[in-house]
């Protein structure tokens, strides 16, 4: 792979490198590895669920598949994938040479592969079966060693996440080039600031809960075991204090990605820069006070349900501000419908559905009806697949030329998008009616009357699995045989495009100069033909390479 980066050998990507760009790629490739593992587990579940009877796997093994699928996708796919782009992009976007703590950064990454392998090793001793939530007392009685491996892996991955967040916050707040004030930094940095705040405040509480759960599991205490005088509800509160914000930890980085991708490919300034920036912070803050909406059926008292119902619905306000701002950004733009923008628009439409069904389940009476049904499964997959994963693919297509120095094949990219979008909706849309009709989640068996829709869901999931092939082929082919990428193929204004593709070691030949805001596309007060001005300047910069 020498041709990918003239200054770098392929071995560097397997080393304890402190270069944020190497670490970003390491995160991304590791995350994709676990995406395929988690995806394979999901496909096994869908094969089982194609018929109402347990004919493909035993119910116990189904529980293991379900638990491992959820945990891998959250802790080893979306979390590291968000960190991948944060690592790669933050220093470039703010004109820094590297992260604030490069060695800490490498440590944070190198916790993940052993943590992930350790996690997968639980299959040899009987993987955990209590779901990614690991509610006691179920988690205390369904296989001790698998559960303990689950706890230790999540503690490891949480540590990695905290170390990463320390780096992101310090870098964003302390290392911008001097003439970039906080209101002229790219929105991705704002979203990572909001994400990191949640990681720093939430993850340690999960750690506390898991340490106590571990005592219950191994040492015979009864913090969460009603049989010994403990209370499982306390675990639920501690768990969701992290795990609800975790949803925002997983999706906020991709809100940032969308705010970068849409203006560039629509050739328009972002609509409402400050509104988008501050709404990220508002989501962070509100995200910390909504957790008990996961517990409406856990005997939560009425007044507390009211409080959490209200705060949860209020989250729709900052989220709505973002969605409207993105739509207004696209409105009247010169859309260049390439793979990155297609995934960006796919994100908008799917995330909107997930967000709206989120407001539905925020309402207590409705939630009590659909709690633990496939309606909830549909809701969070629209948020986490339709939101985070679509945003992630938009990011891959948008920054691949920068990261690899090669252009991707747009035709394959569009095929990938079409298959993903259709497969995704076929898989998850029918889960809404299934849930409303009362099909329970997390069970290998179901009432035969649900079979027709489940066959459709399984077919959709197979299409989703197949859709990754054009993507893999495209990426591998482009890395080796792709057309060389210029330094700024999208004529974008953020700083990462002012350096070579791929960027040189320590990023910039000389400290980059801010000569326009991050989204000043088509803005010019002097010339009549507004679009030309910035574009001409961009062409000039590109010509200098």
């Amino acid at each position, binding site marked *: 792979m020498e041709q990918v980066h003239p200054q770098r050998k392929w071995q560097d990507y397997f080393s304890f490198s402190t270069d944020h760009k190497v670490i970003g790629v390491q995160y991304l490739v590791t995350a994709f590895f676990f995406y395929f593992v988690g995806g394979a587990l999901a496909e096994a579940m869908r094969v089982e669920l194609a018929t109402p009877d347990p004919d493909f796997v035993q119910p116990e093994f189904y529980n293991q598949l379900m638990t491992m699928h959820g945990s891998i996708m959250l802790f080893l796919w979306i979390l590291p994938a968000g960190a991948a782009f944060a690592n790669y992009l933050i220093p470039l976007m703010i004109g820094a040479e590297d992260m*604030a*703590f490069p060695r*800490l950064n490498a440590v944070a990454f190198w916790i993940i592969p052993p943590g992930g392998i350790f996690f997968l090793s639980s299959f040899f001793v009987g993987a955990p079966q209590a779901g990614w939530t690991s509610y006691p007392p179920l988690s205390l009685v369904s296989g001790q060693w698998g559960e303990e491996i689950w706890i230790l892996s999540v503690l490891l991955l949480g540590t990695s996440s*905290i170390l990463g*967040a*320390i*780096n992101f*916050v*310090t870098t964003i*707040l*302390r*290392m911008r*080039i*001097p*003439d970039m004030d906080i209101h002229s930094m790219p929105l991705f940095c704002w979203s990572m600031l909001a994400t990191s705040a949640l990681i*720093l*405040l*939430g*993850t*340690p*509480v999960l*750690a*506390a*809960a898991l*340490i*106590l759960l571990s*005592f219950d599991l191994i*040492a*015979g*205490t*009864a*913090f969460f075991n009603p049989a*010994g*005088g*403990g*209370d499982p509800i*306390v675990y639920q*509160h*501690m768990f969701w*204090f992290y795990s609800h914000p975790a949803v925002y930890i997983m999706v906020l980085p991709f809100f940032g990605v969308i705010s970068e991708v849409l203006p560039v490919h629509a050739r328009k300034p972002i609509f409402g820069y400050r509104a988008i920036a501050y709404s990220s912070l508002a989501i962070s803050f509100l995200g910390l006070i909504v957790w008990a909406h996961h517990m409406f059926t856990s005997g939560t008292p009425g007044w507390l349900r009211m409080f959490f119902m209200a705060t949860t619905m209020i989250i729709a306000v900052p989220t709505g501000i973002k969605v409207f701002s993105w739509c207004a950004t696209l409105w009247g733009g010169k859309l260049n419908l390439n793979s990155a923008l297609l995934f960006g628009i796919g994100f908008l439409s799917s995330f909107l559905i997930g967000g709206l069904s989120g407001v539905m389940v925020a309402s207590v009476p409705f939630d009590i009806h659909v709690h633990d049904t496939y309606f909830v499964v549909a809701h969070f997959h629209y948020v986490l697949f339709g939101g985070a994963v679509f945003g992630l693919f938009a990011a891959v297509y948008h920054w691949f030329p920068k990261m690899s120095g090669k252009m991707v094949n747009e035709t394959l990219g569009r095929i990938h998008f079409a298959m993903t979008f259709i497969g995704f909706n076929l898989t998850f849309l029918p889960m809404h009616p299934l849930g409303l009709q009362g099909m329970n989640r997390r069970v290998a068996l179901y009432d035969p009357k649900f079979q027709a829709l489940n066959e459709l869901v399984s077919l959709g999931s197979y299409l989703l699995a197949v859709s990754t092939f054009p993507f893999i082929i495209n990426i591998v082919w482009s890395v080796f045989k792709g057309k060389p990428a210029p330094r700024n193929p999208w004529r974008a204004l953020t700083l990462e495009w002012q350096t070579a593709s791929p960027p040189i070691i320590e990023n910039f030949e000389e*400290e980059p*100069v*801010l*000569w*326009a805001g991050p989204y000043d596309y088509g803005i010019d007060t002097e010339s009549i033909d507004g679009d030309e001005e910035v574009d001409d300047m961009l062409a000039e910069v590109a010509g200098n390479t």
Partner: protein
Amino acid sequence: MQSSAVNESQLVIDSHQESAHHGHPDHRMFGVILFLIADSMTFIGFFAAFLIYRAIMPVWPPEGTPELELLVPIINTSILVTSSFVMHKGQVALKNNDIQGLQKWFAITAAMGVAFLAGQGYEYFHAEMGLTTNLFSSCFFAVTGFHGLHVTVGVLLILSVLWRSRTEGHYSSTSHFGVEAAEIYWHFVDVIWLVLFVLVYLL
């Protein structure tokens, strides 16, 4: 208009590059503070669990829980609080370029930390309850144990500062991140103990 903006930014960059000649700006203390914020959330998690148990259990502490002895913990509290001031004297000594002073005060702080841990060990050994006796005893050992782990780490940090200070010029009145990081960590552990002491022993 565009060009004047460039000129202005060029000026800022020039002044920045001048300061960059004196080495990279140091962000480590900022990072340590972020870490301590995260770490405090772990304790807040434990404390919250403890307070919820206290609030929802009909009898608290559960019947049969022995009365906690207060003498040793009070001595321990005073040792830990005093040690924070002792340690600060070490840092002040370093700022006056007095390495011996730093070593003396830090050695005393480490000894006080060890005394605290010994006191806690004595308390564990003589407690009339075990980890699994009941919910209160479990909470007691989990919370004080997790804090004791932090004290241990703090002592190790102080010892590593002492070890490094043997190298001439490793710490000076202008370069002393390790000293300050160990100190702020120690103060943090101290403050957490005060909250813990009130919650577990006094309430």
